[in-house]
C-alpha cells in the first residue's frame, strides 16, 4: 500500500480502475458522478488509455460492450437516470457473457429526481434492471477506501465469471473526501489472457464469436442454464459482509453503504444506553448475505433495515429471516439522509413494543 492521499470517492474509483489495468472508459457526465469521468479524462491519455465522452449513455454502454468483447478491462459510470438508459446494453453484455465494471453513484429518483444521495436503485441493480434472466455482481462500499478496494475486486470477479459487475455508491460517497491508499498498479499486459476475446485470430486459431441472439430455444435455454450454474457458484463463494456487535444483539440493523456508517454510530449510542444493538452490513448486494442474516435470526429478537429509499433491500432481509423474527424498516428518500438520532429513536420504538 502506498502513502495515503485525500481524494473524493469518485476520483478514487477512477484511480483504482486504472491501477487495476483498466485502459478504456466511456461515459457521459451527470451529477453527482462527474468527477470520475473528469479524472479519467485527465489521466487516461497519460497512461496510454482511452477516455471517450460518448454522445449519450446508450452509446457509452455499447462502447463498453465492444471493448469488453475485445477482452479489455473497461468501465463506464453514471448516476441513476443515466444507469436506466444503459439497461438495454447491460442486458446484452450479460447475455454475451462479457466482463465489465459499471459504476452507479445513486441520486434521488424516480425520473430525473434530484441530485442528492439515495439508495433507491437497489431493485434495479439486484433484480435485473434490463430484460431477461441475468444477474450483476453488485458491490456496495461504505467509505472512500472501500470504494478503491472494491474496484479491483469487481474487475477480477467480472473476469472470473465473465459477467458485468456494478459498484453502487451514492452522491455522498462520490462527493466526500477521505484519506485513501492504493495498491500497486497492474499493467494491462500482465493480466490473464482472455481466450474467448475477439481481438483477431492472427490466422492461428478458430474465430471467436460474441453474440446474444439465439433463435433456437433449446440452445438459448442451455446457455442460460450454464450461466445459472455460474450464478450458483457465486451465491456460494462470493458473498461479502461485515458484522458489528451482533453476537449478543437483541436488535440487529441491516444497512449498506453510507447508511451503514451512520447506523454504526447509532449502534454505539444504543450500547452506551445499555441496549444490545448490532449491525450486519452487506458489502455484496448480490450475492446477498442471506445465510448470516438467517443464522442471526436465531439469537436476535428483531431486525431493523435502514435505507435511503422507501424500502427495497428490506425485502431481501425478510426473505433471509424467513419469518423467524419481525423485520422492520426505516428510511428517508428523495435525497434526505436518515440522522443518527432518528435511527436510535426508531430502534427504541420497536424495542418497547
Amino acid at each position: 500500500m502506498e502513502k495515503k492521499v485525500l481524494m473524493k470517492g469518485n476520483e478514487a474509483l477512477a484511480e483504482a480502475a486504472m491501477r487495476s489495468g483498466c485502459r478504456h472508459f466511456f461515459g457521459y457526465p451527470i451529477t453527482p458522478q462527474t468527477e470520475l469521468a473528469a479524472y479519467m479524462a485527465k489521466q487516461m491519455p497519460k497512461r496510454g488509455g482511452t477516455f471517450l465522452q460518448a454522445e449519450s449513455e446508450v452509446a457509452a454502454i455499447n462502447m463498453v460492450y465492444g471493448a469488453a468483447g475485445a477482452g479489455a478491462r473497461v468501465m463506464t459510470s453514471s448516476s441513476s437516470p443515466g444507469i436506466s438508459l444503459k439497461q438495454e446494453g447491460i442486458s446484452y453484455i450479460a447475455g454475451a457473457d462479457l466482463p465489465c465494471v459499471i459504476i452507479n453513484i445513486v441520486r434521488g429518483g424516480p425520473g430525473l429526481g434530484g441530485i442528492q444521495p439515495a439508495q433507491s436503485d437497489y431493485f434495479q441493480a439486484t433484480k435485473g434492471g434490463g430484460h431477461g434472466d441475468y444477474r450483476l455482481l453488485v458491490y456496495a462500499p461504505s467509505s472512500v477506501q472501500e470504494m478503491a478496494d472494491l474496484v479491483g475486486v469487481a474487475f477480477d470477479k467480472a473476469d472470473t465469471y465473465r459477467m458485468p459487475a456494478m459498484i453502487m455508491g451514492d452522491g455522498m460517497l462520490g462527493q466526500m473526501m477521505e484519506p485513501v491508499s492504493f495498491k500497486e498498479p497492474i499493467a494491462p499486459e500482465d493480466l490473464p489472457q482472455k481466450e474467448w476475446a475477439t481481438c483477431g485470430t492472427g490466422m492461428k486459431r478458430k474465430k471467436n464469436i460474441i453474440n446474444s441472439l439465439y433463435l433456437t430455444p433449446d440452445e438459448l435455454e442451455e446457455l442460460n442454464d450454464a450461466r445459472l450454474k455460474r450464478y450458483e457458484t457465486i451465491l456460494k463463494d462470493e458473498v461479502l459482509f461485515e458484522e458489528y456487535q451482533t453476537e449478543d444483539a437483541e436488535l440487529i440493523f441491516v444497512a449498506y453503504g453510507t447508511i451503514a456508517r451512520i447506523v454504526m454510530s447509532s449502534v454505539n449510542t444504543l450500547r452506551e444506553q445499555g441496549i444490545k444493538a448490532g449491525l450486519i452490513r452487506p458489502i455484496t448486494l448480490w450475492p446477498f448475505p442471506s445465510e448470516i442474516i438467517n443464522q442471526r435470526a436465531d439469537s436476535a429478537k428483531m431486525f431493523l433495515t435502514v435505507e435511503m429509499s422507501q424500502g427495497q433491500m428490506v425485502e431481501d432481509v425478510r426473505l433471509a429471516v424467513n419469518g423467524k423474527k419481525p423485520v422492520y424498516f426505516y428510511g428517508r428518500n428523495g435525497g434526505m439522509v436518515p440522522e443518527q438520532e432518528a435511527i436510535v429513536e426508531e430502534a427504541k420504538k420497536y424495542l418497547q413494543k
Partner: protein
Amino acid sequence: MIQKIIFAGFGGQGVLFAGKTLAYAGMDEELQISWLPSYGPEMRGGTANCSVILSDEPIGSPVITSPDILIAMNKPSLEKFENAVAPGGLIVLDSFLIDKKVERDDVDVIYIPAKQLAEENGNATLGNMIMLGASLKHKDMISLEAVCRSVEEHTPQSRAALAELNKKMITIGYQY
C-alpha cells in the same frame, strides 16, 4: 475527540479549499477525517459549504447536523447555520462582510475582519485562510504548526510562494 466544522460562504470565497486545508492537516496528524461539500441547489443561494470532521475514532455520518465550529464568510451562511451550532461551540465570522451580531449567548464568537486583513496583507482573496487561522484558537483544534506544516507538504513545489502566503494568512488569523 471529535470536532465537527462547517465552512460556509459564497462560491469563490474559498470555503471548500479552507476545509480541504484543515482536512489535510488532520490526515497528516493521523486523525480520521472526512470532507463533504455541498453540491446541491444551496450552492446558488450563497451558502456553499463543506463539512469537515476530525476524529480519533472511525467517522460515522459525514453529515454534520450540529457543528462544534461554524466558519461563516457571508450573512446567508450565518443565518442558515447559527442555530445549528452546538451549545458551547464557536462561531468565527467575517465582521468586514457580515454587518450582524450573533444572537445566541451560549456560544463563543470571534468577530474578525478577514477580508480586510487579507487585503491589507497583500491578497484580498485569502480571507478564507485568515478565517481558518482564527478557528485554530478553539481549544480542541489542530495546532497552528501542524496546519502550516501540512500546507507546505501539500502545495506543489512550483507554487511554493503560494504556500508561504497561505501560511502567513493563517498565522495572522490565529494571532488576531
